[in-house]
Every structure is written in C-alpha cells, then in structure tokens.
C-alpha cells in the first residue's frame, strides 16, 4: 500500500519516467527475491521427485539387467523394453486384473463408506465409539492388515473356516481358488479402506446445513427421498474426491497381494505393479521393469489430471 502511494505521488510531481524505471527495478528485485526463496524448495523437489523419475525413464531405454554388466547404459535399442511391454501378454493380463481390482474395490468402498457414514451420523455415545472402531483398519500398517487376512483365509488356522466347518459346510481356501482369489483381495482391500470414504463423508455430513433436510421434511420427503434427492447430491463432490483418491491409491495395491496370493493362483491376482516388482527384484530386469513403471506413471498422471479437472484446485464441486 505504501509503495503504491509513493508511486502515485511521483506521478503527480511529473517524474514519470524515472519512477517507471524504479518500479520496474523494484518489480525485478521482488521477483528475484521470491525466486530465491522458492529455489531451495524447488531444488529439493527436483532431487526428491524429478531426478528419480528422469532416471527411471533413462533406465527404461536400456535393457539393464543387474546380472549382466554389459547392459548398463546400453542405448543401442532404446525402445526395445517398450516393445516388450507391448508384446508381453502377462503384463496385459496384469493391467486387466488391475482394472477389475480397482473398479470393484473403489465401488464397494464408496458404497459402504457412504452407507456407514449415514448410519453413524447420529449423536449417540455408542455410535461415537463405533466410529473409532471402524477407523482401525485404515490406521493399521498395510502389512498387518495383510497378515490378519492371511490368517482368516488359511483353512488350518482360520476362525472363519472353523466356523463354517462347524456349521457343516466346507468353504475352499479363497486365496488359492482362481474363482475367489481376486474377490478375497477385494474384500480385504475394502475392509481396510472403506473407513477412509466413511470419514470423508461423515465430515461432510456434519457440515451439511440442517435447513436442507428440514425444508425437504416440510415438503413431505420420505427418508429415501431425503437420501437420494438431498443428501446424495450434497455429497456428490466429496464422494467423487474420495473415489478418485481411492482409485489412484488402488494402483498401488501391493502388500495384500504379496502376502495373500503372491499374484496367484497362476496370474489371477497379479496386478501391474506386482509384476513390475517381480521383474525388477526377482529377475533383475530393471530396464523392463522401468518401462512398465513409466507406463504406470503415465496412467497415474492421467488419473491425477482427471481428478484436478473434475474437482478443481481446491474448489468445492457442490
């Protein structure tokens, strides 16, 4: 404010040209100052994220195999690994598995998260306590979640299998049955992450103006009508954000698959990042694994762009 006042005074006294120069210089200094302030953060960001990504892309242009030193920095056929990506049917299968896993787990997480949030959005001491209980799966380390479900899915030691056996029917081991293995992973993933959606929806519900409900009630709306015509439209934005976050996160599904099925039986639960992991760390094909990872990064960036386009930078959709 003070600077603006000074410039106006300079204009009034007729010293426009020197004043304009001064203002320009000041503006440059100001920009430089801000740039200098930003520089350390930008450098840190570059070192932490950009350089590894560039290195990943560079490695993907080589056939790097740790057991064969001659493959280091071999750029003779830079797109050979991408050709392998196009020709690898097991990789393509893993993308399809990933799509199925993401679709069902996100859908179920959103539906369950929404339903549980509605049920828990009542002021009651019991329900307040229940909210905390429901959050437990989400705060557990993923590897612990995986071990819990490994126990539940292993017939010899599973209370679930004991119970079904006591009731007189035998349930096959879900994680070794090709018809159930992916479903078993989805169930565990939904159990772990529906509280995330529930938490977001619950927070939004508690900020919802009561006038909306009251006005609809005055108009004679039933409970179902209130849910579908008032609550759901109000929550549309938050549900979308939660779903898209879960979608991006579902691409990173790893511990459950590593512990529960190891990608099997066969390749029924082998998702793309797990396949990439095997290529890099079981077989040392770092070049090929990097090419797969670059493709995954592109997909993730596309999804992130989609989120930003649909949700906007910090704007409320509703």
């Amino acid at each position, binding site marked *: 404010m003070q600077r603006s006042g000074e410039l106006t005074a300079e204009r009034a006294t007729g010293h426009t040209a020197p004043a304009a120069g001064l203002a320009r210089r000041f503006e440059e200094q100001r920009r430089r100052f801000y740039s200098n302030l930003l520089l350390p953060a930008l450098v840190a960001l570059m070192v932490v994220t950009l350089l590894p990504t560039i290195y990943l892309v560079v490695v993907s242009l080589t056939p790097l195999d740790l*057991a064969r030193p001659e493959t280091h920095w071999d750029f003779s056929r830079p797109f050979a690994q991408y050709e392998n990506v196009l020709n690898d049917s097991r990789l393509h299968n893993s993308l399809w598995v990933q799509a199925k896993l993401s679709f069902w787990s996100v859908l179920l997480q959103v539906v369950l998260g929404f339903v549980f949030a509605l049920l828990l959005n009542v002021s009651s001491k019991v329900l307040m306590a229940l909210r905390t209980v429901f959050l437990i799966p989400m705060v557990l380390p993923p590897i612990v979640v995986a071990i819990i479900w490994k126990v539940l899915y292993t017939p010899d030691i599973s209370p679930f299998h004991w119970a079904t056996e006591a009731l007189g029917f035998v349930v096959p081991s879900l*994680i*070794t049955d090709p018809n159930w293995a992916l479903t078993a992973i989805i169930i565990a993933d939904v159990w772990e992450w529906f509280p995330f959606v529930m938490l977001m929806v619950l927070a939004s519900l508690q900020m919802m103006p009561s006038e909306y409900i009251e006005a609809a009630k005055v108009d004679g709306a039933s409970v179902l009508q209130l849910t579908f015509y008032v609550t759901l439209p109000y929550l549309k934005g938050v549900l979308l954000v939660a779903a898209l976050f879960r979608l991006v996160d579902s691409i990173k599904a790893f511990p459950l698959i590593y512990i529960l099925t190891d990608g099997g*039986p066969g390749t029924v639960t082998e998702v793309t990042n797990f396949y990439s992991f095997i290529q890099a*760390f079981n077989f040392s094909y770092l070049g090929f694994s990097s090419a797969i990872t670059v493709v995954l990064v592109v997909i993730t960036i596309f999804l992130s762009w989609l989120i930003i386009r649909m949700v906007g930078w910090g704007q409320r959709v509703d």
Partner: protein
Amino acid sequence: MDLDRQNRSSGARATLGAARLHRRQLLQSALAGSAALAVGLRAPAVLGQAKQFAGVTLQGASFASTFFGYLENYIPEFEEATGMKVNFETNAFPVFNQRTDLELSTQGSALDVINVTFIYSGRWIGAGWVENLKPYLEDPNLTPDDWDPQDFVGGTMASLSDANGDPYGFPWEAGAMIMAAARADLLEQKGLGLPTTFDELMNVCDQTKGMERVAPFTADKLHHWNWIPYLMGFGGTVFKDPPANLTPTWDTPQAAEAADFYGRLLSEYGPPGVLSFTDDQAMQSQKTGRANMRTQAITWMVPLAKDPDSRVKDTVRYGLVPSGPSGAFPGSNSHGFGIPVGSKNKEAAWEFIKWAVGKQTTLRMLEQHGYPSICRRSIIDTELFKETLTLNGQDVASLYLEVLELGGKGGYMKYRTVPQFPQVGDKLNKAIEKVATGQATGLEAMAEAQAEAVADLKKSGVQIDAG
C-alpha cells in the same frame, strides 16, 4: 537376545561341567577345542591379548531352515571364543533370495556371510558377486590343515564351485528328495505299501482319500523343485541340454502329462489351501497328521519322526521318490555358506564358515539334534549317522546316500544351477498353479509357460533354438 544367549552359553558350560565322560562330552570338548584352535591358528601373536575378532559384528543371512534353529544354540560359544558378535537373520526362502540377490547385485557391505542358494549359485558365482574361497583355503594362517575341504561330498560342492573347481561356498545342507508317508498306517489298513511308481502313487492317493480326514498328498508351493522329478519321470526335461543349450522343452506331451499328473495330486488329494503352503506349512500338515505323503528334501522329512511335537512319530515311513515310465529322478541340491564380495569382514566371515560347517559343529548337530542333511563324508560314514537316521526301524541314511549318488551320477540336476533358473522357475510355478486350479490343461499351461520362458531367456541374452 544377548542376555538370552549369555544364559544359554552359561547353561551349556554348566552342562559341560556336570556331565560324566561320555561321547557327548567328548564332542563338546572337541568343539570348544576347535573354536580355541581356530582362534589360535588364526593369529598366535595376539594370544593373551584381546580376542582376534573383538568388536566385529558379523551380519549373516539365509532362508529359514531347521539347521539355523540348531546352530543358534551354539553361536554364543563361537562368539565367546572369537570375540565377534553374530547377527544371523533368516527369512522365508523367496524373501531371502530376493533380498540377497538385490544386495549382492549392488555389491553392498550389509551382509558378511550368506547362504549361496542352489538355484542362485550359477548367477551369483557367474556374476562375481561372491568371494572365491580358494585363497582362504590355501593360507595356513586362515585355514588349518585338518579342516579338510575334501571331506565334503563331491556332489554337494558342484553348485558351489566355478568351472575351474574353485570353491565359492561350503555346504551346510545337502538336500536329497525322498518320500515320507506321515500316516503309513492308513496305507497298511488298505493293504498298500509305500508307492514306488507314479501309478502306485495315484492309486494310493485314490484308495486313502477321505480316510480319517487325512489328505493323501501334500506339498509346498515351490513347484519348480517339487514337480521336476515328475516331469523327468514322464520323460521330459527342463532345458534341452543345460548349461550349453537352455532352450526350454515344455511344450511336449511328456511335460503336459507330468503337469496334469502333479496338478491332480494337488487339486484332488491335497489339503485345503495346499497351493499357498510354504515348506513349513507343508511339514506341519504332515506333523499334525492332516496330510499323508510328500516328496521333498530330507531336511523337511526327518522332523516327522524326530520332533517332540510330531503326532506322527510312530506312523511315519520313508521311501524313495516314486519312479515314472522313464525312471526315478529325485531332486538333490546343496546350500552353502559364502561371502559377498562387498563384505567388510571377510576374515571374520570365513572364521564363521569354518566353524559352522566344521567337523565338530556338524557332528554335534547330528548327535544332539539328529540333523540329517550332512555334507561331510567322514560323518556320513559314521555309525552315529546311520543310527540317527534309522527312523522307525528304517534305514533312512541309505535312502539319503542313494539319492545323492543318483543326482551326482545322472547329472540331471544341472538344469537348476544355470543363472537364468530363477526367472524360468517362476514360469513353471505359475503353470502348475494354473493346472492345479483348473485354469488350463497341462498342454495349454506348459505351452504358455514355454513361450513366456523363451521371451524371458531372450531378454537375458540367451540363445534359443529356432522353432
């Protein structure tokens, strides 16, 4: 942990003091003497000063095995004798291999002594990731004459040596695949003996299915080890002519038949969840009497008769792996201790190896724990070995030697030590899972696995035959 070890150590000393003069005491004295001798020979100049490896912390790693459970009891004594501290970590087989492979590939110094896994030995030795131990053997300051490297059974050293015969590891386990029927009494009830052919095996499974809710057959999920005797028994091979020609030979009627046969054993006769079983889970399924027959290395079979918590001690019987139309091809292998080239404590690591697979420790393992996978000929030839491996009246020691000799003579285990076997083996694992779960027939699964393996081998620069 340290306190615990100290307690165990002092407990062991107390036992020594209390015991009367008999074989056990002699063995223990020999061990203590050997440890002291090792230190003394290593560096006489430091006698009377600090212990040679005082202040050194040795980092070791291997896959979990009964061997390390036994060895852990003796480590405090070794630490006391040498002054070094030993941190030895064991993990599940695939986890250990994966971590170590990565660590070795970076030539890092995080590990000082490792297990050189059979299927990775070609890769690790070929890439120069583990230390050549010949100079250590040739240096009298590092190795006493009576340590006797020639004492290791020839076959067990094959995978741990390079083309010139230089050793890169010394074995702690010789794996000889045999068959064990945990509930042989069920077979007897049906008037059946232990199966000797594939047809008999299928028949026994069929006849005993449903008896006392015991699954007739069990296995762990490492199919590229368990299934190969069946593949070879039906006349198939893994590669055309390993190590010279690594063209996979799986799109054949023999491989398809073997996959269908083994898939049926698992799917129709295995316990629920058998496809996810680790070695230990498969052993537990037998020890608890929930599953009957298994073909696996002897290390996992002897505990059925020896472990105090085994419920099948009186009913377990042992036999050779059944033979197929083309003969019997029981798997044999060996795992040994080696030193990563990046280790900063190589001499300490060698000291540990000398001790861990030395005659005295090996003898003690046998005497006190009945450890069966002995690699030293001088101990295999003892009456004690035969006595220890006479289980329920059966001479299991003879079975063990027969398998080791068969593997050595036939040369059919060469497929397993080629550097590319880890990635090729993964394709076999997946194929067997697909067959066992009905996702594909043997023919389809093996043809698919063949195509994937060829692509993978080409990726690693291997020449594959056309067609």
